């Protein structure tokens, strides 16, 4: 009976010991996590997000913008559209991710302003100019891709608005994201006569393909927007 009690006491004692043994293990794990996280980028704030947007804005220039109306061949239905295309200097996606990865691996604590400055320098050195655009058709916004703009011609594909947030989560670049989006139409315009109106817009005429073919005429400006 005594032996039985003694054995039971030993089992109880070893069970009481378990939490005590676990405490240093947990502490070691927590210390490791803290050490690793201290070398990582801090969570980005809303202000820092805006700083990145403003950085991009500095490299943005208007290309063409206008508003117009299109009629189908029978003249039975019409379409109203506004469009705006810009050129913007950007950095290839792999370079952006590589800069962020490098900053993350640094031993000292870094912040997003350091990353932004490195990206700004990289844009200045290796940035490429691309065209981006949007078109609002009967009040719904669509993306313009494959934009070609010369002194006398403007053409682009019309696509559903891409889900950039989803693409970013899947590590897909903005350009790939736009290419993957469904094509819903196209626009092709040729510069016509001067209108003599304030701001010197010209009459641009051509075709708007959107579910059907519309003959489209628009007042369009090459001017920069204040």
């Amino acid at each position, binding site marked *: 009976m005594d032996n039985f009690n003694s054995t039971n006491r030993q089992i109880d004692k070893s069970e009481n010991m378990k939490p005590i043994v676990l405490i240093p293990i947990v502490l070691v794990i927590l210390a490791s996590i803290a050490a690793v996280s201290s070398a990582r980028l801090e969570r980005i704030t809303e202000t820092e997000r805006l700083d990145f947007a403003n950085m991009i804005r500095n490299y943005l220039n208007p290309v063409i913008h206008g508003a117009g109306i299109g009629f189908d061949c029978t003249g039975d239905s019409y379409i109203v559209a506004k469009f705006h295309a810009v050129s913007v200097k950007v950095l290839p996606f792999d370079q952006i991710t590589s800069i962020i990865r490098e900053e993350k691996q640094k031993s000292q604590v870094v912040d997003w302003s350091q990353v932004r400055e490195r990206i700004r320098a990289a844009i200045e050195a290796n940035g490429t100019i691309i065209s981006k655009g949007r078109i609002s058709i009967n009040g719904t916004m669509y993306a313009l891709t494959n934009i070609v703009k010369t002194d006398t011609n403007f053409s682009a594909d019309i696509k559903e608005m*891409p889900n950039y947030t989803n693409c970013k989560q899947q590590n897909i670049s903005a350009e790939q994201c736009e290419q993957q989006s469904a094509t819903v139409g196209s626009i092709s315009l040729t510069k016509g006569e001067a209108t003599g109106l*304030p701001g010197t817009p010209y009459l641009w005429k051509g075709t708007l393909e959107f579910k059907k073919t519309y003959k489209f005429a628009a007042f369009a400006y090459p001017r920069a927007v204040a």
Partner: protein
Amino acid sequence: MKKLIIAVCVIAVIAVIAYFLVQYKPQPKPVEEESYVLDDSLNTVLQQELEKVSVDQTAFNAEVENEIVNSLSLFYYE
């Protein structure tokens, strides 16, 4: 009798010529004459409407540019 026939023929010829003269209407010169249709009051209304379009277009451009920079900048941080 001869005189009567000649008189009827002359009258018929005059009637035909008169008919064609009445039917003839000179075509208006569209460009010059239509420009006179826009009087001052209509010009003012047109100018006001164009100014509205201009303001609307500028707001639209600002919206587009904001959307573009916000969506592009997403790819510059994590």
